């Protein structure tokens, strides 16, 4: 069961801050739901900085960035 973070509708830095908070809590995998490619790239960059692997899936114009430790 993965932790879900719904950051849809927020523009950065909120999605990144929400993802960062989830990473700090340390329970993986984390699924960050975003609805802009800017947020998708930013969350991906954060994950890489924190040493996480990412899997990105898209549905309509929403993206799920899955963070795996």
């Amino acid at each position, binding site marked *: 069961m993965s932790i879900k973070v719904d950051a849809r*509708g927020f*523009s950065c*830095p909120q999605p990144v801050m929400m993802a*960062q*908070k989830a990473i700090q809590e340390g329970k993986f995998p984390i699924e960050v739901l975003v609805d*802009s*490619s800017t947020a998708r790239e930013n969350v991906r960059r954060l994950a890489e*900085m924190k040493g996480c692997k990412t899997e990105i899936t898209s549905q309509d*114009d929403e993206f799920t960035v899955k963070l795996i430790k």
Partner: protein
Amino acid sequence: MKEKLTRFFASKWGIITAGVLIGIIGPLLQKFGNPKNMGICVACFERDIAGALGLHRAAVVQYIRPEIPAFVLGSTIAALIFREFKSRSGSAPIVRYLLGIFAMIGALAFLGCPWRANFRLAGGDLTALTGMFGLTAGIAIGVMFLRSGYNLGRSQKTYQAVGWIMPVLMLGLLLLRIFHPVFSEGGPIFFSESGPGSMFAPLAVSLVLGLLVGFVAQRTRFCTMGAVRDVILMRDFHLISGVFALIITAIVANLALGQFKLGYTAQPIAHSSLLWNVLGMVLSGLAYALAGGCPGRQLFLSGEGDGDSGIFVLGMITGAAFAHNFNLAARPDTLADGVLTVGGLSPLGMTTVVLGLVVCLVIGFSMREKFE
């Protein structure tokens, strides 16, 4: 191919490329005729547009700068090609409008947006450093609010037509620039006959280079406020590497074009009143941070369908009208017969900058929520 390009633009080299490109285009636009150290200035250009429309009557700063519509439309084109055009709105628009107004009042206290601060520095104007210090301080205050849960709420997906309002408005502005109609005797559209408003690059040059900037900035999410914010908030140096690239390139370009003049006083369209350069930019920086983007970034976002950014842009244009109608904008230093007159703000201008800071602090304190 598209996916590859997207990855490149999102990479460190992508953002540096954007910085280098803007760093060349700014000085080039100046060479082609734009005012000194103002090859690109989003705040100044929006102020000129407000003047051209007759929203203020400062005769020396009235011109429909084609760069502004070009930035928005360049972003629209990029967003359409890469399928990122998305109509969205509804994240506290009235707050964004207010932030836009005060962001402009702060920018006109310093005489420039963050982009122009970079170009001023790259032209040898050392007062830009005081503005940059203020900008950083303002953004740092904004980061404190972000850390304590400040946000303006989620935006909503909305009708496709909503996202097209800003691009279509910008097309309208372009038509006004091209045909220069006069709507009544002695009335707008005004184009300055002297002063900065009368200095401009040829339409085609402004348009083509502006579209290019809009396109690349949309792809790379270039943002001068975000650059500083990300460093303070997360030690993320991605965006700021683009800003550094811009400044270094612009210095080299200005040296090559003979546009570099080192000094602190009587720099082109700038004043050396230290306190108000700093405080003006503190106000702007805080307003940009609370609104989530520098004036340039707000234009590019409005081009890809973000109605809330569009409202911020309209707020800035409104703020420019207030600033000049109410004598809140700074007066530049003047040097006549070897006598330096230091410019700066009127007492009312000073009061309004302080008022703006209070308004931004109230917004920051009162609009916080805790994430679950």
